[in-house]
């Protein structure tokens, strides 16, 4: 089971040595994020290739680990840019009552965790969600419990880092 350790650093904060120290403040503010690549699933790629149609290029961004989300979510405009159509719907509860949301089947890659898989994700609106880095990085996905249930996640808030074993 490979393990991946993730640290957030504050460029202005150094420890006694020359290296920056993990920042608990940065970690608390930003949460656990990791790069994500969203692409069409193999069935769609094969269909487009056989039909002589171009395969839309993958879309990259950041994903945020969200232990409150039961399902993994992706920014819906990213899914539509890939030419994907909904293959299901799901009911989610809100303060205003139940809302029906579209599900899409995709290939999801998490290169920082060396993980690739095909799964159904919820199309959501993540407009304006970004990490305030320089330059800002858009958040295009939420990693929910349907993926986390297969892994071991360790959140070290005091130390300013998180680890995941996939």
């Amino acid at each position: 089971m490979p393990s991946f350790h993730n640290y957030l650093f504050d460029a202005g904060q150094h420890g006694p040595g020359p290296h920056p120290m993990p920042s608990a403040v940065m970690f608390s503010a930003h949460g656990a994020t990791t790069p994500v690549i969203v692409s069409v699933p193999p069935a769609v790629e094969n269909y487009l290739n056989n039909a002589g149609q171009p395969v839309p290029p993958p879309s990259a961004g950041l994903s945020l680990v969200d232990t409150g989300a039961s399902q993994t979510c992706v920014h819906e405009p990213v899914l539509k840019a890939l030419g994907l159509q909904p293959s299901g719907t799901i009911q989610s509860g809100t303060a205003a009552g139940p809302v029906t949301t579209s599900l899409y089947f995709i290939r999801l890659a998490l290169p920082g965790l060396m993980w690739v898989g095909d799964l159904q994700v919820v199309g959501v609106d993540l407009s304006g969600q970004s990490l305030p880095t320089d330059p800002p990085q858009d958040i295009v996905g939420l990693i929910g419990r349907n993926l986390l249930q297969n892994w071991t996640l360790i959140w070290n808030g005091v130390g300013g880092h998180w680890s995941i074993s996939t």
Partner: protein
Amino acid sequence: MALEPENNYFDTHRAELLKQHRNEFVLIHGDDVIGAYATFDAAYTAGVQALGIEPFLVRQVLDREPPAQFPALMLGMLSAQLS
């Protein structure tokens, strides 16, 4: 709403589908049940092969599906945290 005819068909015929395909994944397009499959991947692949990139429904035949939960997203806490 996406896939409304397909979901209406599923909900109307759920009892019948449960008798024949409990726990399987049915592939529905409009009012047509194209097939029932052991896995989601098999149903989705069959759907793309039959219908291309048109919308179609793949839904597991269960008594009822658990609702999804996205508290941070639904309550706007992501924006509050990150802005």
